[in-house]
C-alpha cells in the first residue's frame, strides 16, 4: 500500500467518522429540541400533523402559567433546601473519610476500605424498607432529614473511593512539609490535600447536586405534605392533574432541568473527564 493511498483512506474514514458522530449528536438533541419547541406552543397545536419543529404561534406565556398551575417556585425552593446541605455534607464527609483511607495508618482500615468497595456494588433497594422503618422510628417521616442526614455520614461509598484515588496521587512529601511545620491532620487536609484535588472534589459536588436534584424515590417515600414537595414530586403531581396540558408540562420540565444544565456547563470539563476516569454511571 502506498503512502498516498493510505492517507486518502485515512481522510475518507475521518469524514465518515465525523458524519456518524455528528448524526449521533443530532439524535441526542432531538428530544431536547422537541421539549423546548413543545413548551412554546399553544396547547391546541402540540399534536399538529405534520409535526412543526418551530412553533407557528410562539407562546412564552406557557412558562409563567406553568409556574402557577403548580406552586413551582415553592417546589424549586424546597429542592434547593435539600440539595444544598446534601452537596456540602457529601463533600465534607467523603473528603474526611477518603483522607483517612489515603493517608493515615491505623489497625483495621484495610478491612474497612474493603467494606467501602463492597458498598459500591450494593443496590440501594435492599436497604430501602428497613431504612424507612428506621426513619419512622426516629419520627423523621415528613421531614427532609432522611434525605439530607445520610449525606453527612460518609457521603457515599463511590465518592469515598473516588476521592481516595485522587488524594493518593498527591505526593506524600507535601503532607510531610506541612506536618513538620506543626500542622494537624485537619489543617493538612484543608490546606494541602483539598486545594490539590479540586477536579475530583467538584466532580463529587456536581454528581451530588444532579443526583439529588433529580431524585424521585427518596422524596416519594419521605415527603407527604404537598407544601413540602420537591420539584420531581411536583412535576409528577402536575402530570396526574393536568395530563393533557403538554405544553405547560414541558415548560415546567424545562425550568426544572435548567439548574442541572447550568451546573453541568459550569463544571463540564471536570465532569466529562471524571466520568471517563472513573467509569461512574
Amino acid at each position, binding site marked *: 500500500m502506498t503512502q498516498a493511498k493510505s492517507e486518502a483512506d485515512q481522510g475518507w474514514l*475521518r469524514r465518515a467518522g*465525523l458524519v456518524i458522530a455528528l448524526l449521533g449528536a443530532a439524535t441526542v438533541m432531538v428530544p431536547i429540541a422537541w421539549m423546548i419547541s413543545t413548551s412554546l406552543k399553544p396547547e391546541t397545536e402540540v399534536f399538529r400533523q405534520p409535526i412543526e419543529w418551530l412553533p407557528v404561534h410562539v407562546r412564552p406565556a406557557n412558562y409563567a402559567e406553568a409556574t402557577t398551575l403548580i406552586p413551582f417556585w415553592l417546589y424549586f425552593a424546597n429542592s434547593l433546601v435539600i440539595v444544598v446541605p446534601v452537596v456540602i455534607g457529601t463533600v465534607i464527609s467523603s473528603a474526611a473519610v477518603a483522607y483517612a483511607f489515603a493517608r493515615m495508618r*491505623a489497625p483495621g482500615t484495610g478491612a474497612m476500605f474493603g467494606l467501602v468497595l463492597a458498598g459500591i456494588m450494593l443496590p440501594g433497594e435492599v*436497604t430501602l*424498607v428497613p431504612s424507612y422503618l428506621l426513619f419512622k422510628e426516629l419520627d423523621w417521616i415528613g421531614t427532609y432529614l432522611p434525605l439530607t442526614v445520610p449525606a453527612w455520614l460518609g457521603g457515599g461509598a463511590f465518592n469515598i473511593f473516588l476521592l481516595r484515588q485522587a488524594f493518593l496521587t498527591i505526593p506524600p512529601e507535601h503532607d510531610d512539609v506541612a506536618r513538620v511545620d506543626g500542622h494537624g491532620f485537619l489543617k493538612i487536609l484543608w490546606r494541602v490535600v483539598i486545594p490539590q484535588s479540586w477536579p475530583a472534589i467538584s466532580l463529587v459536588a456536581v454528581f451530588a447536586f444532579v443526583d439529588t436534584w433529580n431524585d*424521585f424515590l427518596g422524596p416519594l*417515600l419521605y415527603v407527604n405534605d404537598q407544601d413540602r414537595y420537591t420539584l420531581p414530586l411536583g412535576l409528577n403531581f402536575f402530570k396526574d392533574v393536568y395530563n393533557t396540558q403538554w405544553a405547560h408540562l*414541558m415548560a415546567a420540565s424545562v425550568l426544572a432541568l435548567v439548574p442541572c*444544565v447550568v451546573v453541568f456547563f459550569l463544571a463540564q470539563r471536570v465532569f466529562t473527564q471524571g466520568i471517563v476516569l472513573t467509569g461512574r454511571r
Partner: protein
Amino acid sequence: MPDIRLSPDRREALAAYVFLSPWAIGFVLLTAGPMLASLVLSLTDYRLLEPNRMAWVGVGNYERALAGDPLVWQALKVTAYYVGLSVVLELVVGFGLALVLNIGFRGIGIVRTIYYLPAVISGVAVSLLWLLIFQPSSGLANAGLGLFGVAGIGWVYSTTWVIPAFVLMSLWGVGRAAFIYLAILQRIPTNLYEAAKVDGAGRFRRLVRITLPLVTPAIFINLVLAVIGKFQIFTEGFVISEGGPGTSSLFYVLYVYRNAFRYFEIGYASALAWILFAILMALTAMVFWTGRRWVYYEGERSATQ
C-alpha cells in the same frame, strides 16, 4: 506530663478513627444494620399497619415469592428483558461509537458535551418528555416512523412495545459509555499498531488482535456496572407506564415498592429485596467468573487497579 501523651502512631490511629467515624456510623446505621434488619424482617409477616402483631414465618415469604406469586416472575421477566436488551445494545452501540470517535477530529469537545447531556438530565422531567414523544396518536416517535410508512405503534401503551420504548430511552444516554470506551482505546500504546502495520496486519486484523483484547477489561467492568444499574430502574416505570399496560412493565423495584408502601407488606417486600440482592450478586459473580476467561489484563497492574 510525658507519660500520658500518646505515641505518634497511636495519635495517628486515633485521628484516623475520628475521620472515619461518620462513615462508620453511616455504615452501621444505613447499610449493615438495615441489611440485617431486612433479612430478619423477611422471615416475618410484619405489616406496616399492624406493627404490634408480628409472627415468625421462616422461609414462608420466599416460598410465596418464588412458588406462589406469578407477579414476581413477571417482574423478573420484564426486568431481565429490559436489562438484557439495553445492556447489549449499549455495549454494541457504545463501543462502535467509541471506535468512530477514536478516529479523532476537530470539534470533538462539542460532540462530547452533547453526548453527556442525558447523563445530567434525568428523572421525572425527562420521563414526561418521553411520555410525550411516545404518544401513539401523534407523538414525535410515530410521526417520525410515519415518514417511513410505519404506523400505529402503541409504545408505552402497548404490551409489546413498552419495554423496547424503555430500552430506547436508556439508549439515549449511550454516549457516556462510548466516551468511557474511548478513554480506554486512547490508552492503547500506538507503537503496538505501528508494529502490527509493519508486520502487514490490516485494519480489521488490528481491531481483533490488538484493540479488542486490550479493551476487554473496560468492557467487563462496564458490563457489571450496567447490569447492576439498569436492574434498579424505578422512576421511569413509575412515572411513564405505572408498570403497565397490565403488568407488562412491572419492573422489579416497582413491585418491591408496591408491596412495601402500597400494600404495607414489609416482611414480604424485604424477602423480595433479598431475592433481588441474591440475583445481582450471582450475576456479578458470574460476570467476574466468566470474565477471567475472556478478559485480557496487561500484566498484574490493571488487575489490581
